[in-house]
């Protein structure tokens, strides 16, 4: 954790983003803390509905309001609290200092404008260049993201490009103003595996050359392993485990993370059946008392059903939110299978 000495780029403190619906308050993000250092990639992993996308929208200031609202907490970006900025001030940061790429490259580009029009839009807004200069920049950007024949491509429409190409265009758009932070919301989910690998490789190399930080949101532990420096595992609006990527894969301390690891097929181990985490994510309108994971956790007992655990330092730079993480440690040593094998 050499990063510790550096100044934090993003520092999220006790962020709570709630949605006030007619059925009740949905606590999509319920008190999370994390930080991103310059030049690093933070992975946020979790099942759908765990609040990872809402976290990214909160940072961008794009939570739809109403019904959504940042109820509490701070998002410090270079020391400035983004939650206190006006819409106009946020617009200057979006696309300029913080950019975002989305999951669905098929619908992330406007079908009625050319690639060049769309990349140059951000350049014109934030750099104040003329249309002609912005188009030149766009060609440069397309070159950087590895699109062949960029001079031709800028005059083409999104439907003329494949999914992988479109995601490259999205990345070119996002990076056109040299952002300090790139938020990537499941950027590879809609792509097939070979393209996925190419895009991740591209992001890694661009990260190095631009010196930016990446916040990678995904449900795919494979993507996390490939690109992240540190990882936050989210469950039901909270971070349940937070550590660097090697530690997470070598020594998961939360039963949920442990379950996720065991549900991935491994090539080097001969397993007949995969272990699966039973049940589903609880309804956000009706979270259980105590630990939110107690409805699915094989280790849940007594205290887990009454008191919510705090996130604690289980080891140096390894945070976990579980009453029984020490017991899990023991079970791992004795090679006990805590999850049933899937039938």
């Amino acid at each position, binding site marked *: 954790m050499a990063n510790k000495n550096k100044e934090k780029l993003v520092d999220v403190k006790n962020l709570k983003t709630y949605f006030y619906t007619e059925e009740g308050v949905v606590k999509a993000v319920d008190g999370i803390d994390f930080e991103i250092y310059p030049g690093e990639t933070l992975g946020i992993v979790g099942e759908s509905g765990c609040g990872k996308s809402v976290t990214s929208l909160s940072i*961008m200031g*794009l939570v739809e309001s*109403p019904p959504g609202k940042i109820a509490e907490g701070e998002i410090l970006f270079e020391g400035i609290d983004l939650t206190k900025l006006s819409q106009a001030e*946020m*617009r*200057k*940061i*979006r*696309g*300029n200092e913080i*950019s*975002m790429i*989305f*999951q*669905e490259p*098929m*619908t*992330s*580009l*406007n*079908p*009625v*404008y*050319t690639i060049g029009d769309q990349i140059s*839009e*951000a350049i014109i*807004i*934030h750099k104040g260049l003329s249309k002609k200069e912005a188009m030149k920049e766009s060609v440069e950007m397309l070159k950087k993201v590895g699109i062949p024949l960029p001079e031709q491509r800028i*005059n*083409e*429409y*999104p*439907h*003329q*490009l*494949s*999914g992988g190409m479109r995601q490259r265009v*999205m990345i070119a*758009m996002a990076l056109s103003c040299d952002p300090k932070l790139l938020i990537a919301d499941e950027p590879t989910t809609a792509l097939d595996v070979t393209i996925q690998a190419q895009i991740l490789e591209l992001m890694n190399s661009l990260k190095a050359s631009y010196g930016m930080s990446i916040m990678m949101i995904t449900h795919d532990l494979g993507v996390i392993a490939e690109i992240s420096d540190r990882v936050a595992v989210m469950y039901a609006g909270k971070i349940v485990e937070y550590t660097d990527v090697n530690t997470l894969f070598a020594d998961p301390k939360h039963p949920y993370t442990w379950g996720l690891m065991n549900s991935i097929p491994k090539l080097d181990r001969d397993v007949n059946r995969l272990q699966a985490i039973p049940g589903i994510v609880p309804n956000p309108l009706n979270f259980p008392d105590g630990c939110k994971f107690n409805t699915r956790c094989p280790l849940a007992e007594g205290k887990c059903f009454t008191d919510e655990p705090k996130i604690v330092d289980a080891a140096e730079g390894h945070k976990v939110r579980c009453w029984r993480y020490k017991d899990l440690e023991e079970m791992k040593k004795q090679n006990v299978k805590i999850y049933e094998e899937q039938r």
Partner: protein
Amino acid sequence: MSDKNLNKKSNLKSEGLKETSDTLLKDSWRKLKRNKLALVGMSIVILFIIVAILAPYLTPYDPVEQLIWTEGAAVKLAPPSADHLFGTDLYGRDILTRVIYGARISLQISIAAMSISVLIGIILGTLAGYYGGIIDDIISWIINVLYAFPFLLFVIAIVAFFPPSLILTFSAISLVYWMSIARVVRGQVLSIKEKEFVEAARALGVKDWKIMFKHILPNIIAPVIVQATLGMGSIIMIEASLTYLGFGTQPPTPSWGYMISAGQGYLAQGQWWWGVFPAIAIILTVLGFNLFGDGLRDALDPKSR
């Protein structure tokens, strides 16, 4: 649902054939060409527009000059003949000429009324669809209240208050017609604003009004064109009905509605041409716009192929 189809298709295409950028237009034209009824409709619409524009060159007669004062009783309600193909009316005016000039009035009013309707409809529909909440509530409420009124009665109620004029006629029509455009626009904006490219534009720091009118509007223009084309027929009908009832275009300006109302008294006596020819003109034109509009709807719809 429709999006997925669209995406799949465009994806297949981008992997296979290389395509030019005017695909949608070409594609739509190809589909339109296959639809015979739509082509008939389009021909009628084009003919109607040409006739309206070229009116003075298509006929030797003047639409308002009353020939009975110069040529006598022979041209009073004369049946169709080589000189007067559609016959003449009570004042010796050539009915073909008046039908041709009537096309001009109809076209002027329907284009003017439709332009205003589209303008109001797009602005209010986009605001309602994009912002939602209280703005949507207010605009939708106005639309629903206006819809609750019988259309024609409402126009008459407006027109009856003021001295009749061309401007009043099309203003009154657009005052009640914009809402059908606004409804279409609102619905389309509601669906387009959920698309990721709108979110992406926001994430780039684009301003709201620019997102609405630069990013969303071009994506909803096809249904608006369809609605406007279909609406042209309705507006021609409304104008004719108003004039027929004496509220619209005033004589001696040649208008189809007025000719039917003046000519209907002579139908029973056998002098049918005064009322029947303008009626045929209305039917054909409205039919033309409807067929063309229907064809456009199918042609511009990426789902049908």
